[in-house]
């Protein structure tokens, strides 16, 4: 049994209520706060409906580029270290990895920015 509406539908409805009902009824700081919350509701609706492609980087992708193994957090830390210090690795493979990560995350965070 799945109760309806599901999370994405509810979050969209919450965003519409904030935009169509709350925002016109206030101004200044409260109106801005309502706009921010509406935007976050739409972001969360996309995140709730996502099939997992929105995640920043996968372990497999990181392992492939770094040539190391580990969990996601430790691999991202290794990537950070690879880009730090006196001889940072600015190779096309790492740049491409960052681009893929950013584009996926933007699909969730703000798709019209792409």
């Amino acid at each position, binding site marked *: 049994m799945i109760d309806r509406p599901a999370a994405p539908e509810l979050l969209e409805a919450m965003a519409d209520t904030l935009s169509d009902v709350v925002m016109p009824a206030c101004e*200044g*700081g409260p109106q*801005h*706060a309502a706009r*921010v*919350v509406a*935007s*976050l509701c739409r*972001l969360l609706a996309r995140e709730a409906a996502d099939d997992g492609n929105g995640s920043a980087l996968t372990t497999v992708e990181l392992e492939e580029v770094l040539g190391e193994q580990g969990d996601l957090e430790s691999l*991202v*830390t290794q*990537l*950070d270290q690879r*880009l*730090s210090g006196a001889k*940072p690795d*600015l190779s096309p493979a*790492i*740049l491409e990895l*960052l*681009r893929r*990560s*950013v*584009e996926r*995350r*933007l699909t969730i*965070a*703000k798709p019209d*920015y*792409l």
Partner: protein
Amino acid sequence: MTSKNAELELGLAEILADSGFEAPAVMVSGVASTGATRRTVFIDIESGGSQQRAVAQISSAANVAVLPISATAEAALINLMAEAGVPVPCVLGSDDAHDAVGGSVLIAEHVDGVTIPRHVLRAVEANSPVGEHLARQCGTALAKLHSAAIDRVPDSVPRVVEPNFFSAYVPTIVQALDHLQHSQPTFRFAAAWLEQNQPISSCEPSLVHGDFRNGNIIVDRDGLAALLDWELAHVGDPMEDLAYLCMRTWRFGNHHRPVGGFGSIESLRDGYTEAGGEWRDDAFQWWMVARTAWWGIGLAFQAETFTAGISSSIVHAASGRRVVELEYDLLAML
């Protein structure tokens, strides 16, 4: 609002009396905004039989310590800018530590016009030449700002001590990244790129506004009416201001108009060079990357104040999900 603000009103009147106002009476008429380090209130001043609208920017005593420059130094800078022909509100009074006000305050005349970015864009949207005119005016104002005599800039205003603006700036980015709780590989990549791609061009240091963007300007029917918020002013590379104004994040959705979402770089550059400014393209591109990285890291810090329980602001929470926009902007330039 009068009784609630009675102490504040009396304190502001004292400061104005010290500045030469005749038996001033002050009434708070509204709150314009409440920022991270200071709040801005609208006030009405009655003095010598006449009335005047003004704006008071107040920092609590706790926040005064973290302000980059003091209220009196900011007032001195604004007066210097007025002499240089930069459109600024006339300063009416300032104090770095006033008991009744509860901190520092800068009082300036009220300037009519719009400041909220989407209102600015709406005002110029109907007629695109207005936006180009505004971009050109921004260039002219920046040329005048950058030509001000730096030996008259208050000593407390930060100065780049290294001979090279660029090699001095990169460590500030790296240190900020080191202080973040979570890894930010895109910004690490940008920091390394900035280190390896420093511009060849150079120039004499000048006063830099430091936060010149859509949102910190007042726009009226004639275009640029005033530049606001000088608390990030410093002495450094003038191209920093020109690049910052053109960052995609300050275009507020009007990405096809790089100058604040309302004009072209050609108009900005024409206004700047015709008023005596020297445009250095390599430095412009470098600062676009540097300042985009700086603001992206700034958003990550805002989000950390929320996740650490220091701030309960929904705007700070939302900043964490905006960091990726700045990462995207960076990668588009690298």
